[in-house]
């Protein structure tokens, strides 16, 4: 048999998940010289872009501009999109093996890690990602409810999701009205009675995960004063020594900004954003109705591990903080895909540099690959997935050259299309998405917003004139 990758018989690749990683991988594959590749991208939602549409904060439109590059990739004649087609439900791994030479899983990390403390499941205690998906108009989360009559909110964590949630809670309705936040979320947040937001970091200012632009933005909110306690902004001796030994400009800058916040008097804005360091929640307590009312924090101290990292260790000093709403953001975790080997320990697909491994033999499974957060876990920024996808694509091309590909019975591109039509007649193509995109932008323009999102599949179907 001749090797796929020619005009007569292109290399057929299925990409599962249409987030940044899926597009970066598609772009690498389609740009190959000397190998003709056809890419079909599947997503369980009708719309592409993954977390760029449904994770990146609505007041960070600039970050979303990366979608222009994705659209360019999608305009390639050998690229197709099958939206609202779910792996394990509408198509199976067995179906894919029958139609493709190679399969790439890039489904991201979809759930939150738990804090593992008593009271975590009280009413009013939520994973931060559910709130994010809700305000971004994710069809699966649009009917979620968050009690914004709460006055006091705790956001656990200081990574970018935690910072986004705290910032959105502190934004004024006027600020939010210029974003593409979901319409229902804008309405709900208009009626918000939130007055205090506590952003809780378990380590010190020098170790906090947020970036300097993120922390600066918190100091420039129209409707909230940022509060940092001088004693928590001050570096402990270990952090100071570490920073002196290896002076990193970004960390120094971060510490400087936080110091400036600590010496800034509150200006009387209606909300306060309290950034805390060296504290961890140890228990949530509720009222008779099971609603969260209070959070117990333990003060941490830092110690150096054998490899030189400063880690938190609980002291026996406690503090009770009244809170009515809690969002936890202590890390994302991948979800196993039906029929794909999973590495429970790290919460990723079992893989070596992107090659999916057989759990028994620990040898690569022919034709199956992974990239992005479901390959390595949730690290870095959007662009970090580009070198990651490139590493996986390099493995795919190496295996193609060595003849280690699947042997699909029905490799013609029409065959899978027929199957999808049969299983999911109302799937969404990329042309459908471009029409929805134009409609969203037009609806937004009419009200002075970058776009007004469709947030349910029915709405999207109706907008396209489907019955």
């Amino acid at each position, binding site marked *: 048999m001749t090797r796929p990758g020619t005009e007569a018989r292109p290399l057929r690749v299925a990409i599962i998940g249409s987030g940044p990683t899926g597009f970066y991988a598609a772009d690498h594959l389609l740009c190959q010289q000397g190998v003709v590749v056809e890419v079909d991208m599947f997503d369980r939602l009708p719309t592409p872009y993954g977390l760029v549409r449904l994770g990146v904060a609505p007041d960070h439109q600039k970050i979303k501009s990366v979608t*222009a590059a994705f659209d360019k990739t999608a305009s390639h004649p050998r690229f197709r999109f099958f939206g609202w087609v779910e792996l394990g439900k509408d198509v199976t791994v067995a179906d894919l093996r029958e139609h493709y030479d190679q399969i790439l899983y890039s489904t991201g990390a979809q759930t939150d890690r738990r804090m593992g403390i008593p009271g975590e499941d009280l009413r009013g205690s939520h994973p931060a990602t559910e709130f994010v998906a809700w305000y971004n108009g994710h069809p699966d989360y649009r009917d979620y409810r968050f009690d914004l009559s709460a006055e006091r909110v705790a956001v656990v964590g200081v990574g970018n999701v935690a910072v986004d949630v705290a910032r959105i809670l502190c934004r004024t309705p006027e600020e939010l009205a210029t974003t593409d936040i979901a319409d229902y979320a804008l309405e709900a947040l208009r009626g918000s009675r939130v007055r205090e937001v506590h952003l809780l970091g378990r380590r010190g200012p020098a170790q906090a995960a947020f970036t300097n632009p993120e922390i600066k933005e918190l100091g420039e909110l129209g409707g909230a004063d940022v509060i940092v306690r001088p004693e928590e902004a001050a570096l402990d001796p270990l952090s100071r020594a570490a920073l002196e030994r290896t002076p990193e400009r970004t960390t120094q800058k971060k510490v400087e900004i936080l110091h400036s916040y600590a010496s800034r008097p509150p200006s009387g804005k209606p909300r306060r954003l309290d950034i805390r360091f060296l504290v961890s929640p140890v228990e949530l307590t509720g009222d008779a109705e099971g609603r969260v009312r209070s959070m117990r924090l333990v003060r941490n101290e830092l110690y150096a591990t054998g490899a030189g990292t400063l880690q938190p260790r609980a002291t026996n000093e406690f503090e009770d903080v009244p809170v009515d709403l809690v969002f936890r953001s202590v890390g994302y975790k991948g979800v196993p895909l039906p029929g794909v080997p999973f590495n429970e320990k790290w919460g990723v697909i079992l893989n070596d540099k992107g090659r999916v491994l057989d759990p028994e033999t620990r040898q690569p499974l022919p034709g199956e690959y992974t990239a992005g957060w479901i390959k390595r876990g949730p690290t870095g920024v959007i662009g970090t997935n580009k070198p990651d996808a490139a590493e996986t694509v390099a493995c795919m091309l190496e295996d193609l050259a060595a003849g280690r590909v699947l042997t699909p019975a029905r490799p013609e591109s029409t065959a899978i299309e027929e199957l999808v039509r049969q299983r999911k007649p109302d799937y969404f193509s990329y042309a459908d998405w471009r029409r929805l995109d134009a409609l969203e932008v037009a609806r937004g323009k009419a009200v002075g917003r970058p776009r007004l999102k469709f947030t349910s599949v029915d709405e999207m179907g109706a907008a396209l004139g489907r019955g």
Partner: protein
Amino acid sequence: MHIGRILAAKGVNVFTVRPEQSVGEATALLAEHNIGALIVVNELERPVGIVSERDIVRALSRDERLLGRAVTDIMTHDVVTGLPVDDLMSVLNTMTEKRIRHLPILDGGKLVGIVSIGDVVKAQLDLYQGEVETLETQIIAQEH
């Protein structure tokens, strides 16, 4: 970023040898798996040392019959280990300062993997490259 993330995409994470095994056996393992170091573990699978290609080369220059001797004679006994939650940057600094090329990673006292200085540098480079990529995309989009 935590160094545990490096292990997530590393497949088979760690190769071990017992202290009483011969240097010859250790050398064969290094060659077979195309790696630079082996973790030496006791019968409870606890790390008791590390033996690297450098250890072997140096010992060989002093003793031509090295291959028949036990790993324990030439291994580094005092091993610096890491935790999955250790920060990438501080691990990079520690490995550079102490000239460590391989860091065994323990979780709850159990050996769960090994990261090399190459792994750590690559992870750091990918993070930088990702940031540059993201910024570039935004700048280009603003120009249009």
